[in-house]
């Protein structure tokens, strides 16, 4: 019973500071004040629609950066 006492090895970058970036695409799409408006429109799309679609790119960019910066490279460095 109880918690394992020894500090965890971190072979896969679970504790890498890069992981904190993941918070951005989680929090930003949950702030309606950023996108709950018609203007400015973009190719006739109200802000509400085009900006939230654009958040998809934000999510992809972030997960890609975090993956590239934390993946195992050959000898197991991080």
């Amino acid at each position, binding site marked *: *019973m109880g918690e394992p006492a020894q500090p965890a090895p971190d072979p896969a970058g679970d504790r890498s500071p890069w992981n904190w970036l*993941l918070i951005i695409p989680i929090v930003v799409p949950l*702030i309606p004040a950023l996108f709950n408006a018609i203007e400015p429109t973009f190719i006739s799309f*109200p802000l509400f629609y085009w900006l939230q679609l654009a958040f998809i790119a934000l999510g992809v960019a972030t997960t890609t950066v975090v993956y590239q910066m934390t993946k195992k490279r050959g000898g197991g460095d991080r």
Partner: protein
Amino acid sequence: MWEKVHVVELVVFVVLFLAVSAMGFVAARWRRPATMEHLDEWGLGGRNFGSWITWFLIGGDLYTAYTFVAVPALIFGAGAMGFFAVPYTVIIYPMVFLVLVRLWSVSHKHGLVTPADFVRARFGSPTLALLVAITGIVATMPYIALQLVGIEAVLKTIGLTGTSTVARHLPIIIAFAILAAYTYQSGLRAPALIAFVKDSLIYIVILAAIFILPAKLGGWDAIFGAAQAKFDATKANPNDGLLLNANNQLQYITLAFGSALALFLYPHSVTGVLASKNRNVLKRNMSALPAYSLLLGLLALLGYAAIAAKIVPLPGTKTPDTNTVVPLLFQSEFPAWFAGIAFAAIGIGALVPAAIMSIAAANLFTRNIYKEYLNKEASPAQEAKVSKIASLVVKVGALLCIILLDPQFSIDLQLIGGVIILQTLPSVAIGLFTRWFHKGALIAGWVAGMGFGMWMLYNVSNAVRDHWAGSNFPLSKLGFDTKMTIYAGLVAVVANLLVAALGTVVLRAFSVADGADKTAQPDYFVDEDTPRGTATPTEAAVA
């Protein structure tokens, strides 16, 4: 029996459907295993899928036919609120980025097949594992039934509908019998192979629609304008419109957040995850799967296109069946052969998740009920056999749901399903990061969250119904002086966590015995180079 059938649409639909069914049967030979008589093979496709297969499989699994029909229907009816599907499917991947690789590693190391398997190993409590398994099965059943609702919306539009029960349901019974047969034979390989066709068809259809429809309907200006005019005309409903208002913003973000928390707790999502080859496949897919979110977002906007095209939904049992607006839009704006392809995409799109869901529910039954309580000595071959039969039972159950009950009942149940599956969050998702919670406290939290969640859902009413009318719980019922609503599932899981935390402190204070943890910290980081665990860790550990 059937009148006014659109023949060209029907022919295209049937041809594509049969071609895909043939693939389902052939799939047993694809990446052929030494034996199919093992849950790792039948239930997880060999646990060896690479990035591409995983992308198609999980994409086809999560973005179901029902989603593709229901989200535009929601936009058609309510406007901005329906767009929650976009933030939902944006935030989910960064949220689970670190969670799923841990689940993959510990499952690889210990030969786990279901989320309840993990809970069993982590908290040493068959009771808690049983609760997680039952929660999973109960939440999955109506989800499978909803896939049938998706197919029915299409069949109805083609004209395969009528007054008699046989006329209404015969096509869907045939479709499901074929699905059951090839899932029985090929296991997870069938939906994995079919997903290639299904997703390709969906991408072609949606992209074509997104470029062609605005041109036909006078551009996006006219489409959004028509939607605005429609919502302006319905003063009776203050919660529709092109934008959110002060009272439904909280509902919008809590629904997106709560749905994202719930999605990867569903057994069928876990099945897709555990079928992948290694950790990098999963991490890469966290960047690649949002392509489906873009598709879903664009598709959602077809709900507005349907308004601009003046689509009138087909009649349902009581109210108009808005799930038919997208099929009707294709029927009215495109040539029959293209509408046929679109319908096939939706129809086949229902089969992939239905197959994976039935496999996942069957695995839960086999691993956490049959093996745990009925036959502890079950061999891998027996497990595979039981799972195959259970998958048939699950499908028949879902079919009966649709035939015997009002489809609205399945929709309600699925809504409840989202709330109840969230109650496994503390033991499954948080359990991957900490063993702090006491097993008894987790059970108490589950009971509390479940009870509170049901009470809230019961108390949601709208203009037509007094109870079970949605997941948007009015905060005024908790004593707050506001018109705001909140997603009931999220409130329920917070209650669950509070009880579990409090219970843990109390149980520890009284030194109540806790279960043993069979996993160790490094297990959460192993990759494919570590040998895969056997499906029976108990005996292996003893020997």
